[in-house]
């Protein structure tokens, strides 16, 4: 935009108001979405809804098996993804010396992060469900989600490991510790809050994903007991309730539960990040 025909001061004023407005608009979008979901969803939520079985395909009853499915796939996927993501980050920060190799590894993580979730869904179906014969199960879905969470955990852990001051390392070496002892006893503890943040971000991605698991998890509304049982996580339940027109109130209730879980996780992430920053600044 060229404002030659109006004074510098006027254009300054105009642009400032545009900037402020865009900030307000962003806030308003979030407020409207949250308010809509929570105002219509919270009245549906009660003990019976949280701890009840799914009845009539979700038209009545509660969502207890759905919540358990969600926690189940999220937990198992994080247990698989954390060692892989953190291990890769440790290698990149502490061992890798060949620049070509680190570029390949980093490009691999970037590519993995940008593959659309529905492509992961197809891969889960053809590889885990059919080729490895794991069937429609919590386990198949968890494996797909684990692959999706690895790049997130890897990227955040790498930043946090590389920001550990080198003086810590030198102190440890000076005392005669080996490389792995230094990593295990000094570097990982110092970077832990950052690593935890990465793991929590990975969890957010796992718990809110539906497209990647819709063809791996089996969409069963019965309580999953074993890891090889089928299940149906919260986002998938919401999708089915909304698109098949089963029950609008229960869809709002499910959406509200999902949004509350994500809000709590976001709050926890900020808590850990702040703690980490304070520690790094010596507070």
């Amino acid at each position, binding site marked *: 935009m060229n404002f030659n025909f109006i004074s510098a001061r006027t254009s300054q004023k105009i642009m400032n108001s545009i900037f402020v407005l865009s900030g307000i608009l962003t806030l308003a979008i*979030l407020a409207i*979405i949250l308010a809509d979901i929570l105002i219509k969803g919270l009245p549906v939520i009660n003990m019976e809804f949280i701890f009840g079985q799914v009845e009539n395909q979700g038209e009545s009853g509660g969502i207890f098996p759905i919540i358990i499915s969600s926690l189940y796939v999220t937990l198992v996927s994080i247990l698989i993804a954390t060692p892989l993501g953190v291990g890769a980050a440790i290698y990149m920060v502490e*061992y890798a010396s060949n620049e070509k190799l680190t570029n390949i590894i980093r490009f691999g993580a970037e590519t993995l992060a940008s593959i659309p979730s529905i*492509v992961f869904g197809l891969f889960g179906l053809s590889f885990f469900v059919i080729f490895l014969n794991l069937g429609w199960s919590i386990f198949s879905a968890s494996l797909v989600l684990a692959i999706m969470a690895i790049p997130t955990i890897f990227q955040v852990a790498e930043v946090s490991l590389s920001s550990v001051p080198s003086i810590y390392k030198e102190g440890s070496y000076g005392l005669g510790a080996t490389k792995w002892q230094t990593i295990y006893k000094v570097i990982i503890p110092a970077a832990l809050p950052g690593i935890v943040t990465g793991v929590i971000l990975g969890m957010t991605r796992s718990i809110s994903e539906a497209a990647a698991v819709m063809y791996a998890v089996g969409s069963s509304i019965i309580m999953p007991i074993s890891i090889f049982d089928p299940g149906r996580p919260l986002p998938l339940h919401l999708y089915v309730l909304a698109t098949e027109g089963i029950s609008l109130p229960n869809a709002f209730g499910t959406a509200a539960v999902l949004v509350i879980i994500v809000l709590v996780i976001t709050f926890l*992430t900020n808590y850990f990040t702040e703690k980490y920053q304070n520690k790094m600044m010596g507070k």
Partner: protein
Amino acid sequence: MTKIAAEALIEKSLFILALFSCFVILIILCFIFFEGFPAIQEYGFFKFLFGTIWSPNDGQFGVFDMIIGSLYVTFIALIIAIPLSISCATFMAEVASNKVRNFLKPVVQTLSGIPSVVYGFFGLIILVPFVRSQFGGTGFSIFTAAIILSIMILPTIISVSYDSLRSVPQDYKEASLGLGATNWQTIRRVVFPSALPGIITAIILGMSRAVGETLAVIMVVGNVAKMPSSIFSPARTLTSNIALEMSYATGIHYNALFATAVVLFMLIMLLLVVANYVQRKYSIDIGGGTL
């Protein structure tokens, strides 16, 4: 085991973990291509890519309309999202006080954390009836999907361009302000040009998220496998084509859906390569090379 042998073993195992991502990508590529290949072989690559009839029952598998659908929805979403998100990022980085900035950061973070199905649900309940009453038709349209997508890519574009705006050296700004430039003149002539590669990366990241989004789009776009005639007509995207038909597809139809994923994958890879290229090209032009 001696200490040295143990150390070597640990290094080897970590090396394998580090290569795991690349290994997984290879397996994913192999399986998607392997499953998609029979459809491309039987139907013909160009006929598949540029065919305009998708009718699995009659053995017609042209995905051209869906490529257009995907690009159309993404393009409109970008037109809505780019001005809003860059202006919001500028507000947070250059104009707002620390207090306002620390308030807006978690807002953007929360927007990016909301599950895509929740966005789709919001679109289905609020936006579809709104578009129907304002612009006619069923309300399921490219326009509706583009609004939802633009909201979903806001946090991506805002946070990446914010980081890039913040990393412009303070000296540059102070020099400009010292010459008597106003804050806006400084932003326009100094801050924006220096932060440009980061902003372009932000836009491309948002774009690849929009192209790859599935369920939120399915819920509002109408999913008619026809060439869209206007912004208010329904359409079908590559992603929604896969998700809608996978549950009952068999035989060549099953393979054709994997071939659709191949097209989608190539589109995303193209965007990623462009993003890398742009970042490298512009970062050399600016002194220091760290921008």
